[in-house]
């Protein structure tokens, strides 16, 4: 072999730089004629309904438009049918001449009928599509997914963007929504427990319509108050959840009823089929056990008066074990750091200035949350939904019992819940 000289090294570096530059140029220059932007439909959200053996696919497609010299995004909904979702997408091309691209699709909504059968009949297409991001939000809804995407909202001209705000990471941290992505839902479905959950998107009428004249400030104040309650984590399922800064009381579009989205309820799934529903309060309790919450609000009743606590953070631990007597145990431990946000009655200056929270109030909150978590578990157990991933924990941590216990692990499980609230200071 020839001697490797310094000139060889210099040449090699030059070749590498030239090659890298060429590749960079190719990479950033264009799409090599593979996609014609004029014929490409950028799908932002997909709604899937089911009618007997057919899938009804509603694709929300972005259309860039210019109004008054300013660029403004708009969207249209294209409906198509097919025996598979893929076939329905092909119909979009046949109807419009556009090639639907799913690269920017961030939301999939499954209609009520679509989740009465295996949801993965519809989701199979998205799992196979390598251009589709599996981190997109997945939700189910009341009624049809088509209606959800056709909803006019004051939040954004494009309904799917408004829906994504409701399902955002921020809402998840407040415990108001139990969000789920395509990846998370698929992992649950293909795991030992075959279970999962999805938020239920609802389009709801605004509770208070702002008046255009007279008592202007009062009306706006009411509307803002209504929305901000939800921003800070109200567990009332009837209340819509809005993104911060969006609640300006503007009805937005003309014609048709303007609605807002909520997603505080959660649908439970077993083997791809919807088997139950968690209420808004139960969803919050489930989020407390599953997620890290920040500045979430929690309502507690004590001595007949309503209080609201701010949960600054929560440490949670779920421990699964099988003891010497072959009894399977699931222990959920929650340590929440909380302070008092407000009360439903006037307090004295001393009470307001006091940073501590009365111990009986914390005890009441602990008792309530504990009952709610047990309620969530019992509800999921009744419908075979392995919400706390017990089957997976059995396989991971107590594998020697897996073969014997796998079938009826939920029935034989003993649940212990330990909740403690601590003061902020």
């Amino acid at each position, binding site marked *: *072999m*020839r001697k490797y000289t310094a000139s060889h090294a210099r040449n090699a570096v030059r070749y*590498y730089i030239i090659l*890298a530059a060429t*590749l960079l140029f190719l*990479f950033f220059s264009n799409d090599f004629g593979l996609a014609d932007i004029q014929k490409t439909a950028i799908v932002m959200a997909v709604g899937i309904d089911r009618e007997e053996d057919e899938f009804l696919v509603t694709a929300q497609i972005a259309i860039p438009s210019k109004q008054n010299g300013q660029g403004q995004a708009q969207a249209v909904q294209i409906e198509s049918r097919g025996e598979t979702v893929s076939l329905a997408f092909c119909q979009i091309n046949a109807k419009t001449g556009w090639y639907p691209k799913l690269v920017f699709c961030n939301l999939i909504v499954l209609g009520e009928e679509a989740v009465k059968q295996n949801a993965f009949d519809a989701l199979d297409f998205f*799992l196979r599509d*390598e251009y589709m*991001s599996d*981190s997109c939000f997945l939700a189910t809804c009341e009624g049809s997914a088509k209606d959800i995407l056709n909803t006019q909202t004051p939040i954004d001209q494009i309904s799917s963007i408004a829906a994504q705000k409701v399902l955002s*990471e921020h809402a998840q941290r407040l415990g108001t929504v139990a969000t789920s992505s395509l*990846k998370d839902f*698929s*992992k649950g479905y*293909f*795991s030992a427990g075959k279970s999962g959950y999805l938020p239920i998107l609802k389009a709801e009428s605004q509770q208070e319509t702002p008046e255009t004249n007279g008592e202007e400030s009062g009306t706006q104040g009411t509307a803002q108050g209504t929305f901000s309650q939800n921003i800070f984590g109200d567990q009332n399922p009837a209340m819509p959840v809005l993104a911060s800064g969006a609640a300006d009381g503007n009805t937005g579009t003309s014609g048709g009823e303007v609605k807002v989205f909520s997603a505080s309820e959660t649908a439970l799934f077993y083997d791809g089929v919807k088997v139950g529903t968690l209420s808004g309060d139960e969803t919050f309790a489930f989020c407390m056990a599953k997620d890290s919450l920040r500045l979430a609000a929690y309502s507690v009743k004590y001595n007949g008066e309503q209080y609201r606590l701010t949960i600054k953070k929560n440490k949670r631990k779920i421990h699964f074990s099988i003891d010497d007597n072959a009894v399977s145990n699931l222990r959920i431990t929650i340590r929440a750091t909380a302070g008092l946000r407000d009360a439903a009655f006037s307090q004295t200056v001393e009470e307001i200035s006091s940073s501590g929270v009365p111990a009986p109030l914390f005890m009441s909150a602990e008792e309530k949350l504990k009952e709610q978590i047990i309620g969530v578990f019992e509800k999921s157990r009744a419908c075979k939904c392995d919400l706390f991933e017990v089957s997976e924990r059995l*396989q*991971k*941590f107590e*594998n020697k019992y897996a073969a014997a216990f796998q079938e009826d692990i939920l029935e034989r499980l003993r649940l212990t819940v330990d909740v403690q609230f601590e003061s902020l200071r």
Partner: protein
Amino acid sequence: MPLFLVSYVGLMILSVAETDFSDLLPIFSDKSGVLKGIPLSFNYFSDAALFLPLLGSYRYKQGDGKKIMLSYALGGAFVLFFLAVFYGIFGVISPAQKNAFMQTAKYFSALPVIGRFDLLLGYLMTIVLLFAACVPIQLSVSCLAEVFQTERKPLLSIVINVPLLLFTCLCSRYYSKIEFFIERRLFFIFPLFHLLLPLLALLLLLKQSKKGKSRGQGSDERKNTSQNKEAHHA
């Protein structure tokens, strides 16, 4: 190497937060599955064969063995850590993921705000992989030049690259079948080259030491006879 380190470390930093390492449990519970899986992974872990073209032309220096073993172990550790992160993120749906290096970092929470800069890291990794794919071809040209004792490397390069190009053009549509054939049917070829052949190279050392010994014995005998002759003359 710097390109690889930047892309690998960057991608891993973006990915680790999303990883649930408990998805790797229980390790080795399915022993038969592990045993079945080992032969199927032979073709992905046959880099030791890349040392073979260095036979006879590498001058060993003190401590080189440790350095080589350390770098080889580090390479293995990088691969294992990436696989652990990949499986920790995707769990049971890992087999359904394509282009593994591009998949793990996309869940980083800041990406929706600042954009998909993880794609740049993936692009860097693609360049590294491109060079990694070229290394065996380049080394095989050197190897052939050594065998035929020729300096006409461009000709040898054509001899190797043209059939490869034709193979790529003609067989790219049969990618999955070829992958299946190499992975499932020709798996035994790879350990021959990356395990057995390097081990057999140890026999060369044995032969060398025998030669050395016989040379040593011959010189001793020559010394003895000359001494006897001198004594006889005296």
